[in-house]
């Protein structure tokens, strides 16, 4: 069933100044759209707009040229006010071929701008997109503004002096297009030029050709006679807190958070992983960070990765492993070993659409149940979720803190959207981060591996190499007193209860749940977790702007839940829970607190649109209203 959606107020490109704009670059997977988007993002951040991005690419590495399933897109939403999603509808669509136009045109607002490479609208490419006639010429796009340029021809002319092959010359098309879009929004080309020179340092003529193409596209905007109504736009700078900023994806923020965590814990970190989309980039980022207290291991499979991480933890480092849904499923036995032996371990799950291979490059939140309940036996484990790309940094630090303080595996939930989406980040002052140093046990006197902290219930961590604390641990149930193997019935009961109590006790060591937008009681609370933050935030903000009594609560700690969450939710007449799954978190809320929450569920491989959440808010409030008037009559 398709989710109801409301069209948001649109700023047509009629004025010289617009508050916010959504641009989508779309082309073949070989057209370099991701690189184009990344450079435009950087220029936009430097310009001073707030922004959010959404790289949307196919699972196929190089699909056949011109195929609709090979379209790779990069969407950016930027503006003068706070931006937390990649935008519902497009103001500008860059279509490098007919397939890119076909697959994205439905999202372009009326009056929106299409920039199309007419040179790629050949008979062959039109057929591949199943167009009978060229849509650029048959009047079917009359509702939009069209800038139809033979970009291929323009590029070939611009880079001719470099004597590149026809194919290599055409590869500069994306930079020519970027130059034009940069002119359109008055962006600075210098950082892109620097990036190109760095990227093609070994091939200076390719770097120069790309720079020339970029400048040529820009010059085209400045000098060509453009159709009426297409001109340079001003997007005022956003008002943001002072500080030093950078762009960051969730993957990068998460990697850096793990590194920061290891420094704050004063401990070495082993990152053991097996390649899987969309989690592999985390491994790539960590591999290049061995100058920190980081070592990495590309294991032979998912199981070996979690086991190597657990082995490292046994030896006194912090083991971290990372994967996506199918890989996490394979790791679960290893995770349970870490839980049973009470060793710290961080498991990062960058969720994707499933089940099975599902939609490897698309986002979903459907591993919530697996994170909480996916292990054999009674194996409780803390689970925390990051809400934005930037938030991945803090959440990673928090995962390291909880794992080392409580001697437990911790699962960190991210997703494909957060992993790839970039947003501006006010760089924190690293000196202000609170250290939580780990101390390994070295006292041999009366040592037993079963010693534990009275308050946290954390087991002692004595690492091999320490004199006098030689000991054995393992998967067989351990005696509460001695740590030796035990098949005693009463002991197993006690140990099972101990493991549960230890994890439950973490609730006293995490912040109380706060309301992130709106009042802390009232008519309706929209409660989310993970990457739905952006869309919920904007929808609730707009609803409040309409004078509606709606609040936004975003839960980071999924297990254990914040101790005040139930009490907080009961202060609202109704609770709405949007999730990118068929309703997993909502079952926890309903069963824990006996609250009659209602779900808003989307499993389309795409993030929520603001309009979808807003429509659900309006409907819920209308239902409440109708219920009241119904009972009054």
């Amino acid at each position, binding site marked *: 069933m398709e989710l109801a959606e409301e069209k948001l107020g649109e700023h047509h490109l009629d004025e010289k100044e617009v508050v916010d704009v959504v641009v989508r670059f779309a082309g073949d997977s070989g057209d370099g759209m991701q690189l184009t988007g990344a450079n435009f993002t950087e220029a936009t951040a430097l310009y001073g707009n707030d922004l959010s991005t959404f790289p949307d690419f196919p699972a196929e590495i190089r699909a056949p040229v011109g195929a609709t399933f090979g379209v790779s897109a990069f969407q950016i939403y930027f503006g003068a006010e706070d931006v937390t999603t990649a935008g519902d509808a497009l103001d500008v669509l860059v279509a490098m071929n007919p397939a890119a136009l076909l697959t994205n045109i439905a999202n372009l607002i009326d009056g929106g701008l299409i920039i199309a490479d007419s040179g790629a609208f050949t008979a062959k490419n039109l057929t591949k997109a199943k167009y009978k006639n060229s849509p650029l010429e048959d009047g079917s796009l009359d509702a939009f503004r069209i800038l139809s340029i033979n970009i291929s021809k323009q590029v070939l002319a611009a880079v001719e002096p470099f004597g590149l092959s026809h194919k290599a010359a055409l590869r500069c098309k994306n930079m020519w297009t970027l130059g034009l879009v940069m002119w359109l929004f008055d962006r600075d080309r210098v950082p892109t030029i620097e990036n190109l020179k760095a990227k093609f340092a070994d091939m200076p003529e390719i770097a120069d050709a790309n720079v020339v193409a970029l400048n040529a596209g820009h010059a085209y905007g400045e000098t060509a006679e453009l159709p009426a109504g297409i001109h340079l736009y001003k997007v005022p700078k956003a008002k943001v807190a002072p500080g030093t900023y950078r762009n960051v994806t969730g993957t990068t923020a998460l990697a850096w958070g793990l590194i920061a965590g290891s420094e704050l814990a004063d401990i070495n970190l082993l990152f053991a992983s097996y390649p899987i989309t969309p989690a592999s980039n985390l491994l790539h980022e960590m591999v290049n960070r061995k100058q920190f207290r980081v070592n990495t291991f590309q294991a*032979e499979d998912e199981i070996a990765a979690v086991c*190597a*991480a657990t*082995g490292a933890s046994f030896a006194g480092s912090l083991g971290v492993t990372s994967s996506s849904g199918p890989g996490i499923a394979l790791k679960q036995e290893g995770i349970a070993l870490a839980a049973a032996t009470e060793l710290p371990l961080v498991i990062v799950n960058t969720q994707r659409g499933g089940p099975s291979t599902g939609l490897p490059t698309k986002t979903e939140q459907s591993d919530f149940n697996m994170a909480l309940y996916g292990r054999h036996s009674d194996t409780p484990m803390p689970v925390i979720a990051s809400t934005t790309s930037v938030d991945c940094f803090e959440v990673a630090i928090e995962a390291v803190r909880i794992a080392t303080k409580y001697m437990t595996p911790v699962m960190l939930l991210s997703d494909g959207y957060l992993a790839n989406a970039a947003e501006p980040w006010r760089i924190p002052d690293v*000196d202000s981060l609170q250290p939580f140093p780990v101390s390994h046990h070295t006292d041999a006197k009366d040592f037993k591996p079963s010693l534990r902290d009275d308050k946290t219930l954390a087991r002692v961590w004595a690492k091999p190499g320490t004199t006098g604390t030689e000991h054995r641990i393992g998967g067989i149930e351990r005696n509460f007193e001695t740590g*030796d193997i035990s098949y005693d019935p009463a002991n197993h009961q006690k140990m099972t209860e101990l493991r549960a109590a230890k994890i439950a006790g973490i609730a006293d060591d995490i912040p109380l749940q706060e309301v992130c937008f709106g009042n802390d009681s009232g008519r309706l609370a929209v409660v989310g977790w993970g990457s739905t933050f952006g869309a919920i935030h904007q929808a609730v903000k707009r609803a409040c702007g309409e004078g509606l009594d709606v609040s936004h609560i975003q839960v980071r700690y999924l297990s254990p839940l914040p101790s005040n969450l139930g009490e907080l939710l009961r202060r609202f007449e109704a609770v709405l829970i949007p999730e990118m799954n068929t309703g997993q978190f909502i079952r926890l809320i309903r069963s824990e607190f006996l609250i009659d929450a209602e779900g808003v569920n989307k499993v389309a491989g795409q993030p929520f649109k603001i309009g979808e959440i807003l429509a659900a808010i309006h409907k819920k409030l209308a239902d409440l209203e109708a219920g009241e008037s119904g009972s009054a009559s």
Partner: protein
Amino acid sequence: MNKQLPVLTLKDFATDQEVRWCPGCGDYAILKTIQKLMPQLQRPRENQVFVSGIGCSSRFPYYMNTYGFHTIHGRAPAIATGIKLANPELDVWVVSGDGDGFSIGGNHMLHVIRRNVNLQILLFNNEIYGLTKGQYSPTSQPGTRSPSSPEGSTDSPLSPCAVALGSGGTFVARSIDTETKHLSAIATRGYAHDGAAFIEILQNCPIYNDGIFEQLKDKKQAPDFRVELAHGQPILFGQENEKGIHLNRESLSLEVIEVADNEDRILVHDEANKVQAQLLAAMAGPKFPVAVGVLYREDKTSFTENNRERIETARSKPGSLKELLHSGHTWEVS
């Protein structure tokens, strides 16, 4: 390490745990041999780590008064790799069985050998599943009758040493549970090897597969059914060393020949010859004696050494978190 080590004995390496193997199990003999070997290695007890998977053999760490980790089925090589990555100074021993190491954990076994991770891998091969009560294993002979193969198994067995060689093993050896001196000598050489030392130990299961190695172990029969390899020595066996192994260069295969008048045709064992090692590893009765000893050894940069180099290079200039966070393009908002 110049630290004065306390003088330790076998007793220092025994734990207070009641050993729970069946009476007559070959594992007892192996345990005793390794406990006895420990003080001879002249290494601090706290540096020894025993890691195991699941199965009868995998209870081993509970009985060694060192650091130990009894993990999950088949995964000991992966856990051990993590331990070595975290602390390369530790001496890590993997204790596994034919089911643990070559069935459920076959993938990890071949990769840990391929990577040449500095470990001593003791593979107890009794050609049967013991702890799950007697099902046939990946090394069981065809025709093995078991609860899961009442008509006799039909799967072809694998040879652990042949797989280890095929995986790029740099130290591949075979010994026998009750041959204390031989096993101790092989384990000592394996310990000294810089890389993955793979040692298959033929081990008797008195309950589910009793006597399968009897011909190799029985003092009277052994000379005819096993051959002890020694580097640089002709490969001889038999009650009077009257038989030898000959390499037929035409067919690239081994043959058993009489030594008399054939001394110069007897194959001389060369630990550095991999092709020869494969042929020797595959020798099996009744046509051939079973080879024990070091089948193959080569010097090759170990996983631990490669890793150490990478880390040292990367950390020649320690990272600054602040610099990392400010790397690339940043901008100021005032």
